[in-house]
């Protein structure tokens, strides 16, 4: 086996994160398509908020469909809720839109990304935006209760 200085160094640097990450543990097979949705502005009931959807794919496709499912009682102020086009391997496609949100509560916003092949094959991914709940101080989150069972810790969840 042979090694060459500069190239070797670059490869080693490039692999550095994997040295820690791999550690002889096989992560489950990675999905080729990834999608996320996140707000770019503050989100509050009754207000307008900008959201950005990001899609990446390790596979190139001529037919990527990004779809935002518009929640009831919202109004699209600008941008598009669906986009169709191509994507190259490791390219990032972004979709921005501004929604007027209902006054009662911020609804969940679901997004999906689908890449199609000419033969009808399909790969998809989805994500959901939900506003973190700010609970009134009087509201108690029901958590599991930890008890001991023969010296081992058991966390009990009461069923309703």
């Amino acid at each position: 086996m042979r090694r060459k200085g500069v190239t070797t160094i670059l490869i080693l640097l490039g692999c550095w994160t994997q040295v820690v990450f791999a550690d002889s543990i096989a992560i489950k097979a990675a999905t080729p398509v990834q999608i996320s949705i996140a707000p770019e502005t503050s989100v509050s009931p009754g207000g307008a908020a900008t959201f950005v959807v990001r899609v990446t794919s390790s596979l190139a496709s001529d037919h990527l469909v990004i779809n935002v499912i518009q929640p009831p009682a919202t109004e699209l102020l600008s941008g598009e809720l669906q986009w169709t086009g191509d994507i190259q391997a490791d390219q990032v496609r972004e979709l921005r839109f501004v929604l007027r949100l209902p006054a009662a509560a911020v609804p969940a916003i679901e997004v999906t990304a689908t890449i199609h092949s000419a033969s009808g094959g399909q790969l998809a991914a989805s994500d959901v935006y939900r506003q973190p709940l700010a609970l009134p101080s009087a509201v108690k989150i029901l958590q599991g209760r930890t008890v001991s069972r023969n010296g081992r810790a058991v966390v009990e969840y009461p069923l309703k």
Partner: protein
Amino acid sequence: MKHGRQLSARVIRFTLLLALLPLAACSGGGSGEGGNVSSYGVQARQISGTIQYEDKEYSAYGFNGNTRFKPVRFAMIDLVDADNSIVATTVSDDSGQYTLAGEGANLRLRVLAQTDAAAGAAITIHDHDGNIYAATAALEIDQTLVDLDIAASSEVGGAFNMLDVFTSSTEFVNQFANAPLPGLNAFWQADSNRYGTYYCPGNYRGGMCPHGKGIYILGGRSGGGDSDHYDDDVLLHEYAHYVEGVVGAQDSPGGVHYLTENDQDLRLTWSEGLGGFFPAAVKTWMARQRPELLSTAADMPLTYFVDTYGSTAGISIDMASPNPHFCPGGRDCFVYSSSEVAVVKILIGLMNEFGMQAIWDIYANYMARGTALPATLETFWDGWMVQRATGGEELAALRAVFNERQVFYQHDGFEADNTLTGMTRMIALCNADACESEQHYLYYNSYSADKDLVAFEAVKGRGYLLETVDLSNGADTYIRILDAAGRQVFDSYGQLMANDNRPGTVYCGMYDNPCRIHNNSDMLSSELNFVPGKSGTYYVEVTTSSNKAAAAGRYGVYSLQITE
């Protein structure tokens, strides 16, 4: 359409067992069906019922919205009093049914996400703090029939699906294994992506494996994203890694891998291929033995592997018929021993042809834990040859399964080329207009290194480029030039004419695994620039490198070409 019952901990009916109950002092008022639990003093109780969990059905496109209640099998069940003392304990049967009798105040029923050895192995589902999951329900006064339905939406629904999938897996393995598997611990927490989905094989505690050995399952995050507790195929895949850890040899370097890659480390493709095969094998067995326990839609082949992201399928592939349309360039990438999907398909083919027992026997015996052999498809093939003394029709059928995925553990068309004796065959030289490279298989069934020798004519002072190209199946070639007497040749500059990896190839040394030596067409190929000091007949010899990368194989496919 939803199947089954929707209510959690639904009380089906109350019955007074007057003969059994001394009607101990009851405090508080009575309660009706579905009413509030009342406080009461010490009672002697005998209860029975059925424990079920709500499972999600999935198709090739992800979860289809159907759910169905299934029995919580072989789970440990306690009757617990107000002081947290266990009044009685038992284990649910194969139908999720149980009976308990005991005495105490303000009793509650507790079902642990833990199976008893009656399931063939003790399986325990923990949260990220190491606590064992349990579902509880308080008992009403005089309640004797207590059925628990654990909804998918409850905090512990996922834990009981994992318990059931691992229980089915254990039942499957017990069909073939000589002894029960040791205990399995799984770690998961709803709405937590603190850890991903993987199996930790060692006893080291820390990093990605805070609780040491066990299966770690992605719980997702609040609001969406990927989670795996209802992805049965993913769970079965990880269980296969657990089986590897306790039964077979396991030396996969791990790390990130994509299903469409076909240049991976052979140890990784074997391990992941085994993991990809296991769901198909278990589901095929379940379809025959326990079809009611399957979570798959009726119209979906059992060889599908589905990993959902949200409610839709992020990865969905029929391992028995992988669609190449998502391969780079549209060419079938699910080929070679360096493709995990190819390994899956080969194992499915062998299961269909020879049965699961044949596969298990090779794996559990020839590739047993502690074996020094690399755990690869090559080793599995060798085991098949050694243990089954395969020949005739079986060998032909075996080859057909491997060849269909372009894996060639067999002699090539140029054999009888291991020695110079009688070697007269000449390779045609390439020129600017044409090049006829010849394809060789590095394979020899006596386990000594295969040698591929061929003659070529060279003229003093002219330059010749000898190279191995189009490597596949883990080939790592070593090339050298010999003269007619079999001696190694030096060129006109005094350079020894031998090469392992062509100039510019990067070898990662101590970072061999993480640096990912790829079994692609050229990384481990060889190249010689030869300017002969005298004209005559020379021989080029190609073998597997004696210094081969751990990621590569002893066998493999390459093409040889010489260009003037």
